[in-house]
């Protein structure tokens, strides 16, 4: 606890830790002023693994397999970013079939990861209820209470994972993407299997939409309005025509009115528009858009950002769902174009699962998928390279420099969750102001469902703290009250 060093330390601090149903070790603190009102809410991350350091001196070809071990939920994202950086270092542009296969792999991963976030981790909050027993408010509670939905979620995740296994050899930490392409092509059997599975996957996501969307008009209205609803910038990859893109693309940054702030960024130097700040109170760094400065340069990435940034998705059902999404969440100020509510991330995930399923079908019926080489020959590349992928949680950057022998001399990883760090902090602050009756009375008893709502604000972003600090854990919840000297006045942990 760093309260003693803070200018706000005249008041007390409430800590929520460790957070659960979130991937990573983190905590939330609420710092109070002398009058017992909220001075500042913060989201802290308490992990560190040091990939940027221990990868130095290793051959860049190892980076796919190594950085996949940053995160077991989205290893494919690291594999793709490392592969793309490797393409440039090697001077080997992947053949068309390899590019399509990489995209197919990413669509499968986004599908399984979104299913995990929506069904396994977040849906217990609203399907079992914020006030439900914390010991039951989880996947196993869902299995007992709503087996149909639990089965749909488990099935959808299994479909994505099994697709990854059939394509890349294993479900987790497959080393299939390599500089210059992929290790092997897709078999006719796998292609047929995927096409056979798609109808059931579609039915599962339809079930989730049918269950979730009506709740936004009723019991979840207040959460939608108060869980991180604020204007910001949004960053995502887009295709050359501006469409939603989970393959190779270029970066576009838009504001909350839908105006393009920066576009066409894809070169090595372009990452300089993003800066990172370190704060003593969190292991997770704070990226921002450099031209607007720290705080003002707050931007969001991930499903919500991708839907805000793209002009369209490009497949019929997904575009239909995107239109409904914008009708529902688009602000009046943006002409219904841009959603600013972070709670809408959950809805955006379902729209993206639809986009992934349709995108898979589009790729699979393309005749070139089964033909042609899947690896390119290296022709000599650059000594510094940027690899970008759209991870389930947002845009992921791997930036490498190598020496003449291809050994790494500099590694910088800019992770999706980290880029949402400023937004997650603002979200926690907004929830605390909206839901806690300030000033807090002297005998403090913060009800468990309220603590859970603070965590749920973070869950909207589906953070991956292993990734973001190149570290690991799932967030557990403790609330601590500190006096002005940093002494613990009261502490409450969920049973």
């Amino acid at each position, binding site marked *: 606890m760093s309260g003693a060093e803070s200018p706000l330390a005249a008041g007390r601090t409430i800590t929520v830790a460790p957070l659960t149903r979130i991937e990573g070790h983190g905590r939330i603190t609420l710092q109070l002023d002398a009058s017992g009102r909220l001075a500042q809410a913060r989201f802290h991350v308490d*992990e560190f693994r040091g990939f940027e350091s221990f990868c130095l001196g290793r051959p860049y070809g190892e980076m796919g397999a190594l950085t996949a071990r940053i995160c*077991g939920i989205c290893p494919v994202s690291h594999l793709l970013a490392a592969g793309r950086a490797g393409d440039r270092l090697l001077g080997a542009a992947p053949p068309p079939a390899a590019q399509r296969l990489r995209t197919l792999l990413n669509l499968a991963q986004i599908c399984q990861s979104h299913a995990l976030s929506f069904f396994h981790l977040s849906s217990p909050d609203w399907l079992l209820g914020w006030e439900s027993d914390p010991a039951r408010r989880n996947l196993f509670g869902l299995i007992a209470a709503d087996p149909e939905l639990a089965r749909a979620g488990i099935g959808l995740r*299994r479909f994505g994972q099994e697709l990854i296994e059939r394509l890349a050899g294993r479900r987790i930490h497959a080393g299939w993407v390599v500089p210059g392409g992929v290790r092997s092509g897709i078999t006719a059997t796998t292609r047929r299997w995927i096409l056979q599975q798609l109808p059931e996957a579609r039915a599962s996501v339809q079930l989730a939409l049918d269950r979730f969307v009506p709740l936004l008009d009723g019991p979840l209205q207040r959460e939608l309005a108060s869980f991180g609803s604020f204007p910001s910038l949004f960053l995502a990859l887009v295709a050359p025509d501006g469409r939603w893109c989970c393959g190779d693309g270029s970066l576009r940054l838009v504001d909350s009115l839908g105006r393009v702030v920066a576009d066409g960024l894809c070169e090595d130097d372009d990452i300089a528009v993003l800066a990172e700040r*370190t704060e003593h109170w969190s*292991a997770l*760094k704070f990226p921002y858009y450099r031209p607007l400065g720290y705080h003002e340069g707050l931007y969001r990435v991930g499903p919500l950002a991708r839907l805000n940034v793209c002009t369209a998705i490009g497949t019929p059902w997904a575009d239909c769902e995107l239109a409904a999404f914008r009708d529902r969440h688009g602000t009046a100020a943006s002409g219904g174009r841009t959603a600013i509510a972070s709670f809408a991330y959950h809805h955006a995930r379902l729209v993206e699962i639809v986009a992934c399923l349709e995108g898979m079908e589009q790729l699979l019926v393309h005749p070139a998928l089964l033909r042609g080489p899947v690896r390119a020959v290296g022709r000599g590349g650059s000594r510094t390279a940027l690899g970008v992928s759209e991870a389930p949680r947002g845009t992921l950057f791997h930036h490498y420099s190598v020496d003449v022998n291809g050994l790494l001399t500099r590694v910088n990883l800019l992770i999706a969750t980290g880029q949402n760090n400023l937004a997650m902090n603002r979200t926690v602050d907004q929830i605390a102001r909206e839901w806690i009756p300030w000033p807090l009375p002297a005998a403090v008893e913060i009800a468990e469902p309220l603590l859970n709502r603070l965590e749920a604000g973070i869950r909207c972003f589906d953070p991956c703290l292993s990734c973001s600090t190149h570290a*690991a854990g799932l967030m557990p919840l403790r609330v601590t009250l500190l006096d002005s000297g940093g002494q613990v006045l009261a502490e409450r942990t969920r049973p």
Partner: protein
Amino acid sequence: MTPGSRLRLATVWLSGCSGCHMALLDLDEWLFVLADLAEIVYSPVASDCKIYPPRVDVCLVEGAVANRDNLELALQLRARTSRVIALGDCAALGNVTALRNLCGAGVQHSAWEALDCAYRQLSDGEEVIPAAPILLPRVLPLHRVIAVDGVIPGCPPTAAAIRAALETLLQP
């Protein structure tokens, strides 16, 4: 079956990538069977309980011991658990997490070198090293800090291996 008659299962996540827990979720529909065999009393992916509970029958531990929080939790879970199983290669051997031990010139300084690289060399603005977590000088496999009753190897282990282990461990 009443909750009282099932074995009490916990899963813990120290310093790792979550891949072993994802492999656990790769049990897919067998999770329905698991729900009948065991009561999940503590788990980062399947429980909101914040304190490691007493009288746990089986605990699967993912990840290596890299910081003080990891160490405290490892000691706590050992004291409250009958059978502790190292889940995956980081818990069993250190694996990729222990590559941090190679940072810098020598073993003594590896943690500092890694922090310095991440937060000072690769960050803008003031040079700040975060106050938490407090890193141990070396990343250690689980058996170096507590007694371990079994290992499920792999990076990550396959769901089939986890299932085979659980079917044995959870026999009443």
